C-alpha cells in the first residue's frame, strides 16, 4: 500500500474577533493550503470538517463548508474530539487514503468562539465534560488543568515561576508569528503578576479563546509527489481516550491519553523521543506544556521543568517545542488548533518557518489534546 503524505497546509489568522462567518473563515485556511499545489478543488475526493459544535448556531457544518468551498458532490462529514478535532480528522483522512477509498482528502478545522461571551463559552465548554456527573459542578478546562498543576506541584515541587517560563518562551516566538492572536513578548514578572484565573493559574498561564481555521491537504504518496515539491510524510499516528470524568483518572500528574498516544505514534514510526527534531504540543495552559514534555518522553516524569529552566525547548535547544508561539500566543480556536500545529511542523520540515526555523529539522511531532485530557492525539511527520 502507498504511504500517505501532507501536500498542503494552511490556516487563517487567529484572532479574538474574526468578523466573518464560519464559511468565510474556513475559506481563508483552504486558500492557503491549496496555494502552490498542482490541483484544484475538483481533485479533492472528500472533506473532513472538524470543530466543537457547542459554539455554533449552525448544526452539521460539514455540508455548509463543503458547498462554500465548492467541493460538492464529493463526500463531506464531521469529526469531533473537542480541542483535538482536527488531529482526529487527520487520522481519519490517513485511514481513508491508506485504505484506497480516496486519493486526496481535505481536513478543515474551524472555531468561531467570539459569538459568545467568555462566561457563556465556559458554560458551553463545560458540557464537553460529563453532563450528569461533573458539568453540574461548573467544572471546565481551566479549573481541571489547575488541579493537574496543583498535583504536579505537590508531587514534584514544580513552581509557578517554572510554569511562567513556558509562557516567556512561547510569547517570545509568538511575537513574530503573523497568524497569532498575541504578538507581544511577556516578561516573567508580567506573567507572575497577572491576575489569578483559577489558582495556581494566572491570566498569562492560560491560552485565549479565539476565532480561526486550519486546513491540511492529505494525499496518497504518488499523488502528493505529483502535486507538491516537498511532500511531508505521515509516519506515526497515535490516539487514546481517557475517562470523561476527572474522578475516573488514575493520576493528575500526567495525561494518560497523551502517554498512550505517544507510545503508539513512536512505535508506528519506529523511532523514539530522542529522534524528534521539533515538536508542537498542546499548551492550552503553561502546565499542559510541562505535562507534554513528560508524557511524550522528552523528559522523565517530574523532570519536565528542567527542559524549560535550561532553555532546551527553545529553537536552538535540544528539543525545540512550540517555537511558533503555541496555543498560548496563537490563541485556541478549538477545532482549528490541531491543523495549525500540523501546519507549523510542515513549515519546519520544509525549512519555511516564519517564526524560528529549527536548523535541519527532518522529523516533527504534534501533540494535540481534547478536553481536560479526554482525547489524546500524537502525529509524527517526516520530510
Amino acid at each position, binding site marked *: 500500500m502507498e504511504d500517505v503524505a501532507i501536500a498542503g497546509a494552511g490556516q487563517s489568522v487567529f484572532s479574538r474577533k474574526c468578523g466573518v462567518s464560519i464559511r468565510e473563515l474556513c475559506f481563508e485556511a483552504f486558500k492557503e493550503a491549496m496555494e502552490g499545489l498542482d490541483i484544484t478543488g475538483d481533485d479533492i475526493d472528500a472533506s473532513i470538517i472538524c470543530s466543537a459544535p457547542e459554539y455554533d448556531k449552525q448544526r452539521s457544518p460539514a455540508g455548509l463548508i463543503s458547498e462554500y468551498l465548492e467541493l460538492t458532490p464529493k463526500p463531506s462529514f464531521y469529526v469531533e474530539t473537542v480541542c483535538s478535532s482536527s488531529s482526529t480528522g487527520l487520522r481519519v483522512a490517513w485511514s481513508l487514503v491508506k485504505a484506497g477509498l480516496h486519493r486526496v482528502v481535505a481536513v478543515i478545522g474551524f472555531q468561531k468562539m467570539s459569538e459568545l461571551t467568555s462566561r457563556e463559552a465556559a458554560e458551553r465548554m463545560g458540557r464537553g465534560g460529563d453532563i*450528569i456527573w461533573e458539568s453540574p459542578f461548573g467544572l471546565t478546562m481551566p479549573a481541571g488543568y489547575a488541579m493537574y498543576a496543583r498535583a504536579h506541584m505537590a508531587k514534584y515541587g514544580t513552581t509557578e515561576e517554572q510554569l511562567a517560563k513556558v509562557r516567556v518562551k512561547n510569547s517570545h516566538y509568538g511575537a513574530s508569528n503573523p497568524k497569532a492572536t498575541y504578538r507581544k513578548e511577556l516578561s516573567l514578572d508580567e506573567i507572575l503578576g497577572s491576575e489569578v484565573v483559577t489558582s495556581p493559574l494566572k491570566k498569562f498561564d492560560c491560552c485565549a479563546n479565539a476565532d480561526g481555521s486550519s486546513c491540511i491537504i492529505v494525499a496518497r504518496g504518488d499523488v502528493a509527489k505529483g502535486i507538491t515539491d516537498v511532500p511531508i510524510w505521515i509516519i506515526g499516528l497515535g490516539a487514546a481516550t481517557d475517562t470523561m470524568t476527572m474522578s475516573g483518572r488514575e493520576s493528575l500528574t500526567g495525561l494518560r491519553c497523551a502517554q498512550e498516544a505517544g507510545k503508539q505514534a513512536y512505535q508506528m514510526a519506529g523511532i523514539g523521543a530522542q529522534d524528534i527534531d521539533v515538536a508542537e504540543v498542546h499548551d492550552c495552559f503553561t502546565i499542559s506544556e510541562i505535562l507534554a514534555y513528560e508524557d511524550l518522553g522528552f523528559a522523565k516524569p517530574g523532570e519536565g521543568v528542567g527542559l524549560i529552566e535550561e532553555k532546551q525547548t527553545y529553537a536552538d535547544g535540544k528539543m525545540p517545542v512550540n517555537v511558533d508561539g503555541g496555543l498560548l500566543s496563537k490563541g485556541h480556536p478549538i477545532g482549528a488548533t490541531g491543523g495549525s500545529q500540523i501546519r507549523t511542523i510542515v513549515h519546519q520540515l520544509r525549512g519555511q518557518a516564519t517564526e524560528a526555523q529549527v536548523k535541519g529539522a527532518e522529523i516533527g511531532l504534534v501533540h494535540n489534546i481534547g478536553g481536560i485530557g479526554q482525547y489524546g492525539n500524537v502525529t509524527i511527520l517526516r520530510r
Partner: protein
Amino acid sequence: MPVPGIPILEGKYPSTMDLYPLEAKEFNRVHQFYENLRQKRFTTTKCKKCGHVPFPPRVVCPECNSEDLEWVDLPTRGKVLRFTEEVAGVPLGFDSPLIHALIDLGDGRKFVSRIINCKEGELKEGDEVQLAVFDVPPMIIEKKGVMTEAERVFFAFEPSKAEVK
C-alpha cells in the same frame, strides 16, 4: 419573560441549556441516586454477584454484566487532596469563587467535586469536607401539553463543621 431576539422561547423549557441532570424517573435508571441524595446519602451501586462498586452508579455491572445490583453508601466525608479556586471567567450559572477539589473519600476512592459554603482563601489541602445537598431549579416535564415541575436536588462538598460531628 421574552428572550431578547428569540421570542419563540417565551414560556419554553430549553432543555439543552439546563445546568442540571434530568433526575426524574421518566428519564434515567439511576434516579434512586437522587432519592438517596435527598436523605443526605451519597450512594452508588454494588454488584451482588461480583462485589464491584463503581462510581457513578450503573444499571448493569461493567465487570460481570450482572443486573443484580444493590444501592450502597459511600463516605460523606473526605479529605481535600488538591483544589483550585476559580475567580475569573466562571461558567454562566455559577458565582466566584468556584472551588473544585480532588477529595480522598478513604478506601482508595478519590472524587472530584465542587466545594461550596467556602470563601476564597479559606480552604487548605488536608481539610476535611462533607457532603452538602441543596435544591436546584425544578425540571419542567411536559405531558400532553400539561407542564409539571419535578423537584430536584444536587450535591457538592463543603468544609466540615466541627459542631456537626
